[in-house]
Structure formats: C-alpha cells, structure tokens
C-alpha cells in the first residue's frame, strides 16, 4: 500500500513536466512526422500518403554514384563543421573549466569569471555575427593589421564567408555550452583524490589523464551533446558566416519551408532528427551518463 502510494506520488510529481513534454514536444513531433509523409503542391499540403518528401531528398544517391548526391554532400559537410566545432569547443571549454575549477581559489571569482564567459550572449545572435564582418572582411581590422605589419600583400579572402569563419563563429558562440557542464563535473571532484595522486608520485599530466579526465567524462559528454545538437541543426550562423554558400542540413529545411514545401521540409527534419539521435546514442554508449551522475 505505501509502496503504491509512493509510486503514485512520484508520478504526480513528474506529471507537470510530462504534460508539458507531451504537449509541446511529443505532439508537434508526431505532427511533423505525419506531415512528412504527405503530398504537397505550390500552396498547400495534401493529406494523402506520399513519400515524395523523402524520395526527392535522396534523389540521385544511387544514380549519381560514385559522385555523392546533394543530401550526402550536405550531411558530410555539416558533420565536418560539427566535428571541427566540437573538437575546438572541447579543447577550449576543457581548458577554461580546468582553470576555473582548479586555479581560481575563491568562489566569488569563480562565479565572476563564469559570468564573464556569458558575454557573447549579451547581444543578439545576428548582431554577434555581423560584428565579425568589420573584423575579418577584405578591408577589415585583421587584414589591415597584417598588411600594415607587412606580413601579407593581398588581403586574405578566406577569413570571411568561408568554413574558417563559420567554425570561428560557432566556437565563439558555443564554447560556453562546453564550459558549464565540464566545470560542474570538475568542481565535484573530491580534492583529496588529487592530493592522493600527488602523494603517490603522479606527475601533473598523469593526474590529468588518469584522475581528472575520467571523472569529468559526464560533463564532457553533456557538453558534447549540447554542441553537436545545436551545430547539426544550425542554419543561421552557417548562412551568415558562410555567405549563404555553405550547405548545411538546416539550410535545406529552410529553403524548403520558404518555398512552402512543408512536407518536404518535415521529411528533412525527420532525417536530421534521426541522424542527431544516432550521434547522441553513440555518445551515450561510450559514456553511460546515467551511471555516472
């Protein structure tokens, strides 16, 4: 009886979240999936079963072999950007978090410095990205500076509207998503473990590799999930920083939506969701966050 009661209370406690979740996530997701299998014309969705959205998306994937079809090229490119961004945010995020957790002694300073990391979020996404143009442009600060220093004769064109600028902007935007979960994991490491490692004669590097990194894994995985899911679906940053010339999975959905081809857009969204879920489940297979938390 008490057991039943406990379970009931637990369900009741979870109910508000479940309700919100079902209403604003599961239900729309269900709609998107249903719509993805509809037909469409120039101006409306036709509620008749059709896999046109999917077959059109994979158009040429077999016929064009050995050349890659549009969708594969797009996903490869998105994955490449994602991997680069992930690697850099992890490296920078880990370093920043390490500094905050182990080198900054006072709690106040830890809080102040963490808040400083949020500065990129004080302005809107678009403003933040536009700010790169006077910096990296053909006549921007960086090119002027390098020319002034006599290092280059011609302005560097690849600084802006290139994969370089896309990755730079993404890293700038999303490193914070890495810092917070990693910092959170690090701050919970029992300091005595590090002292023990030191006493046992471990070098700084050995302590890092054998003690700190294994204990920070959940933070790393959570941060990675944040960064990977955001970058996989991004089309605004890639669009603006890539001069709209770099393909991304999100951009395909955007151009379909703009052409009022909702079922085709929904089909692409379902494909993107599938790919993202695959990546996340692979990640969680490497580290079982459930067990670690």
């Amino acid at each position, binding site marked *: 009886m008490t057991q039943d009661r406990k379970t009931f209370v637990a369900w009741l406690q*979870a109910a508000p979240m479940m309700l919100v*979740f079902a209403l604003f*996530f599961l239900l*729309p*997701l269900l*709609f*998107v999936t249903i*719509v993805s299998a509809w037909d469409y014309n*120039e*101006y*409306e969705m036709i509620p008749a079963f059709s896999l046109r959205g999917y077959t*059109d998306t994979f*158009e040429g994937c077999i016929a064009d072999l050995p050349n890659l079809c*549009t969708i594969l*090229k*797009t996903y490869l490119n998105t994955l490449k950007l994602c991997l680069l961004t992930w690697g850099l945010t992890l490296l920078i995020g880990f370093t920043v978090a390490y500094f905050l957790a182990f080198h900054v002694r006072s709690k106040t300073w830890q809080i102040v410095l963490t808040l400083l990391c949020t500065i990129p979020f004080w302005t809107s996404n678009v403003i933040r990205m*536009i700010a790169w*143009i006077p910096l990296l*442009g*053909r*006549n921007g600060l960086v090119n002027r500076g390098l020319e002034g220093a006599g290092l280059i004769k011609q302005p560097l064109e690849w600084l*802006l*509207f290139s994969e370089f600028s896309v990755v730079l902007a993404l890293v700038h935007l999303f490193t914070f998503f890495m810092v917070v979960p990693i910092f959170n994991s690090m701050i919970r490491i029992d300091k005595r473990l590090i002292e023990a490692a030191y006493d046992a004669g471990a070098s700084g590097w050995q302590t890092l590799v054998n003690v700190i990194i294994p204990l920070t894994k959940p933070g790393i995985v*959570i941060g990675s*999930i*944040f960064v990977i*899911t*955001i970058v996989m*679906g991004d*089309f605004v940053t890639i669009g603006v920083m890539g*001069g*709209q*010339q*770099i*393909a991304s999975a*999100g*951009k*395909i*959905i*955007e*151009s*379909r*939506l*703009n*052409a*009022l*081809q*909702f079922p085709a*857009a*929904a089909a*692409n*969204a379902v494909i*993107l*969701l599938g790919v*993202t879920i695959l990546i*996340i489940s692979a990640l*969680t297979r490497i580290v079982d*966050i*459930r067990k670690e*938390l």
Partner: protein
Amino acid sequence: MTKSSKLGRSISRRAMLKGTAGAVSLAAGSGMITGFPYIHAAEPKVLRYLGTAVNEGDEISKKCLEDTGIKIEYITATTDDVTKRVITQPNSFDVLDTEYFSLRKLVPSGNIFALDAKKIKEFGNITPVFTKGQLPNGKKIGDQGTAPWKVLYLEGANSKTFSKTPTEFVTLIPTVYNADTLGIRPDLIKRPISSWTELLNPEFKGKASILNIPSIGIMDAAMVVEASGQHTYADKGNMTKPEIDLTMKIMTEAKKAGQFRAFWKDFNESVNLMASGETVIQSMWSPAVTKVRSMGIPCTFQPLKEGYRSWASGFCVSKAVSGPKLDWAYEFVNWYLSGWAGAYLNRQGYYSAVLSTAKANMTADEWGYWMEGKTAVNDIKAPDGTILEKAGAKRDGGSYDDRMGAVACWNAVMDENDYMVRKWNEFIAA
C-alpha cells in the same frame, strides 16, 4: 524517467526545434489570432497591414492616420514569411502588401479577397504598365515571368482562376514597383559595365554576389546566361527542367571557381557587402544603391543593354475581412493611390502606380529628376530630408520610360518551382 534520458530527449528536441520551428509554430499558431467582431460603431479604425519592411514607412502610417483616421498596424516579415502567413494564418492580418509573383501561390489558396475595381477611385488612372503591359506612350514591355497584367484580374468574385481579359475583380491593387539591375562600385571597377555577363566575369572573382531567394536568383542567372549567348529562354520566368539544369550548371561552375563572395537575402546585407567593398558587382535594389551613396561611397545602379528584371507589389485584403473593416480597407487603398504616398515612394527611387496624383504631390524638379531623367536643378532630398543627390545629378538609367520600357522579365514563380528549389540546394552543396 531518469535524469539522463530526460536530458537526452530535451536536447534532441532542441535540434528538432531548430529545423522545424517554422512548421510547428505555424501549425500551432494558425487560427489562434482571429479578428474580433467589431460591434461598437465608435471603435477606432485599425487595419493590420502585413508586408515586408520595404514599404512599411512610419511616415506613411502617420500621414494616413492624419488624413483618414485609420490606424495602420504594421506586421513585418520577409517576402517568404509573408506568403507563408497568408496561407497558414489568413485571420492574422487585414490588408496584405505582397508581390504579384506570389499570387500564383496565394490565389489558389482561396485566402485572398478579390477587390472591386469600381470602388477604387483611381483605378482607371493606374499606369498601363499594370493593366496592359505597356508604357503610357504605348510601347510594349517585356512579359517574361509573372508579369502583373497576367495575374491582375480574376474570373469572378470567388474565382481561383486568373482572367485573361479585364474584369472588375482585381487581385492586387498596384502600389509600388521598380526595374532592378546590377549595382556596381565604379570606383573599384574603373571601367564601363554594360552587360549582365559581367556578373560572372572572372575579373570580379570573389567580388560578385546575387540574391539568395532561389526564384529571383535564378532569374538574374538567366539574364547572364542569355547575355553570354549560351542559351535563349522562351520564358526566363518559367524554365523547363533542362533549362533549370543548364542555368544551375553555369552557376555551379562559377561558384566552384570562387566567383561569389556571398549571397544576400536582406536589404541591409546588400548595403553592407557593397559599402564594405566585399563585393563590387551584385544584384541590388534601387534604395539600397541610394543608401550606399548616401554613406558617401560611389555606387551605380547600372543600366545594362539586356534590360531589367522587374518586380511589382500591391494591396489586397484577407478573405476574413468583412463589414466596416472592408470599407476602411477600400478607404486606405484609395488614400494610398491619392498621391501623397505615391510621391513618398517616388522620392525613394521606387515608382508609384498612379502617376498623375503622385506628380501633383512632387515639385517639378523632383519629378524631373526621378521620373523624367532630367538633371536635378536643386539638391534632391530623401523623404526624411537628407540630401541624396547634389544639384546637377542625373538618375541612373534615365527616365521612367527608359527604365520601365527596358524591362526584360518579371519576378516569377515557375511551374517547375519544386524542381528548381531542389536544384538550388544542390547548387549550395556544390
């Protein structure tokens, strides 16, 4: 539910939302905003005006309130979003300001109310560019693409078919239009430019740009292809699949060779690209060129021998509008055509639909500069009073007749639109 699985899912939701926010929010939002019934006669006259930022000047709404007592509430969206909104949420606006080429999507949706030409006072005075496809002097103009006169009339009040002959049921009452061409930086190019082929000239490698709206971008591309003699289109605004393939192939080669610096989608982006020198030649809009010039940077809206790509927009009313609100809508449209707004638009470098009333609201010098291609006697000022051109300047491309008479094609939605969008994605991925 454990902590971790909750987290995992809420994050895939994030990814999902990125991609589908538009679709979902439109689906959820449709029907939520409805026009409340107007019961009291003393209700303030308010019209919700959906359109792009281009025509939504504060000056216009202020003057309109002053003259007619109608309060205009602007709802601003991009061209694509305006179309989406009309189709998914017809109750969320009263007056719609949209382009003629969108009509091929909007009219079949049944969400547009055909206006009665008899209730539009100046209808008979609307420039024959819209009604007959010719200049006031009788010269025929290019009819490739979705030219306004092809979609101006409906067969009946509730018809979804465009009428080939004039009827009293009008889809869009024209308000503003222009002839678009390439904008160039004469100070950086340092030689005359006279053809669309220059857009893909390797001389400007990494310094060219086009519009990132597929249906318009591909038409600029078609102007280039035709100018370079590679293909002559039967209708640039309605290509066949092989024509789309050919056009996109030429564009893809140019893109791979690094011809384009960036594609732009909004007015300010085009201004920034040009003003910062990132691009020296690109498709552009007239007021954007004016804006670059007002920053003290030389920029020319270059007339080209192959002609212009034109666009036109106008007003219509949502099907959901009825009763006194419909009367206000007519009142508003009539006010718009009565001259003040027309003069305001002309002073920005656009053209107004009723030329006679706009002329009455402009000085002879202004009219001469903007419409007749004459040398400005005094400084030419923008509607807000800033000086656009010094005395002695002449408008790029010359007079109204010179510019509108040289229109080669109109913005369009193709029959093969679906195929074209797929090819555009392929082009971006190349």
